[in-house]
């Protein structure tokens, strides 16, 4: 039984703010930041956009590509660290807006930036067990960084949705996770902005988990670096996935297509899912894709996807990731502060 991605869709808000515009306000060296982070600009949601609205738009694109009756979806899981309500599931509103069945399993997932891929694993398991025909997994965020904090340069917004089921456009060949208790980044309940261990976030956090999960997956499936055509890694900035890609022994060309962070920043739970949608937009039958997410706290989920012939008839049924990334409008710091609600009226 071949199970995998039946439909996918991304959504990225159209506003952007450049690293230079933020650095100007805080008197920091923009050129050094751009080089250090490998990020040029980040996406900014409009005042009326949040994880729920981004999820709806991304999922509508996924439904267009899947071409299935929404009623056949049996589970909806949304991974985010910016669910608009602390108590009241985002999934209930998204399900209603999409016209999904009321006979539906729903839960909101949280695991820093990897809750979206955890949602994909759950849908995969339920489809494989025969409990549901299709599952909808979404990773989306409207991430916030404290004004003046290093995170403010990269905390972006966006998301992607995946419908998991039979007759896929990309077969999910296997998944592997690696999880430890490593506190590199956290946010206490009720706090608006996250805290982080600054440089600590790199080695014991991101690299250990991304490398362990990716290698574990390849070992589990007996696949080698040469077997993959594309690599998608969580993108807190451009530098981390680039270095992880090298450490795994992949040539950087295999990462380039997914490296959306340069032009939209880090959209947390949506980061590797949006990277994957950018790859699927251009992938050809027979291509194999490695995707590994990372969530602080910490854990990584790794997946192998084998693209099927079905991709060709579904790629063009909805706007591409590139459509959203290139259709943009740059704003200044004043509007950014207004849009992000950092201004109290």
């Amino acid at each position, binding site marked *: 039984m071949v199970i995998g991605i039946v439909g996918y869709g991304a959504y990225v808000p*159209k506003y952007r703010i450049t690293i230079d515009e933020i650095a100007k306000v805080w008197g920091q060296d923009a050129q050094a930041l751009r080089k250090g982070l490998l990020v040029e600009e980040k996406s900014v949601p409009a005042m009326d956009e*949040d994880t729920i*609205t981004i999820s709806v*738009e991304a999922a509508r694109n996924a439904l267009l590509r899947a071409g299935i009756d929404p009623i056949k979806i049996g589970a909806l899981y949304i991974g985010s660290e910016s669910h608009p309500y602390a108590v009241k599931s985002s999934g209930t509103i998204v399900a209603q807006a999409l016209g999904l069945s009321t006979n539906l399993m729903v839960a909101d997932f949280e695991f820093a930036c990897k809750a979206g891929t955890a949602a994909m694993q759950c849908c995969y398991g339920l489809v494989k067990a025969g409990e549901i025909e299709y599952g909808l997994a979404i990773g989306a965020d409207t991430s916030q960084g404290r004004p003046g904090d290093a995170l403010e340069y990269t905390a972006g917004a966006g998301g992607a949705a995946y419908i998991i089921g039979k007759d896929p456009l990309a077969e999910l060949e296997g998944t592997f996770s690696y999880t430890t208790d490593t506190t590199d980044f956290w946010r206490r309940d009720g706090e608006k902005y996250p805290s982080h261990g600054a440089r600590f976030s790199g080695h014991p956090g991101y690299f250990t988990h991304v490398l362990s999960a990716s290698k574990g997956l390849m070992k589990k499936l007996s696949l080698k670096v040469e077997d993959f055509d594309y690599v998608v890694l969580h993108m807190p900035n451009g530098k981390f996935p680039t270095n992880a890609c090298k450490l795994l022994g992949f040539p950087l060309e295999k990462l380039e297509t997914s490296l959306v962070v340069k032009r939209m920043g880090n959209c947390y739970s949506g980061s590797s899912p949006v990277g994957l949608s950018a790859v699927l937009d251009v992938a050809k039958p027979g291509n194999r894709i490695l995707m590994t997410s990372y969530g602080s706290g910490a854990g990584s989920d790794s997946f192998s996807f084998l693209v099927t012939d079905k991709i060709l008839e579904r790629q063009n049924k909805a706007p591409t990731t590139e459509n959203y990334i290139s259709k943009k*409008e740059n704003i200044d710091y004043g509007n950014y502060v207004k849009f992000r609600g950092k201004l109290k009226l």
Partner: protein
Amino acid sequence: MPYKSSVPLFWRLKDAKYSLVGTKCITCNQVFFPPADFCPQCRRKGKIEKFQFSGNGEVVSYTVIRVAPEGFEKYVPYVVAIIQLDEGTRISGQIIGDINKVEIEKRVKSVFRRITEDNDQGLIHYGIKFEIVD
């Protein structure tokens, strides 16, 4: 005040507000939004069904709001327009983005957005707005 914490009212209208579900009289093909359960033309011969609008349409008329009602203050200036939907009825709605891009006869498509919030502790209301298609 329909938006101010009327939880039951909001709940009853959510199909229409979230995804432009209206109704259609299959006797005379007239479409209705907000949904009507009676066709004024066919009267008792009318047969009403649920109808999903595509969300595509055209600007018929618009106005720029610079002094907003309660709950919409942070969005000013913004555009409220009358939209002719392709399937054949007119509705009013907010057009997002640059107010200078809005013109009569411009094409629009629907988007899913936050409409308003009661306050920091209250409900967030979601629904359909429109975006100019370039």
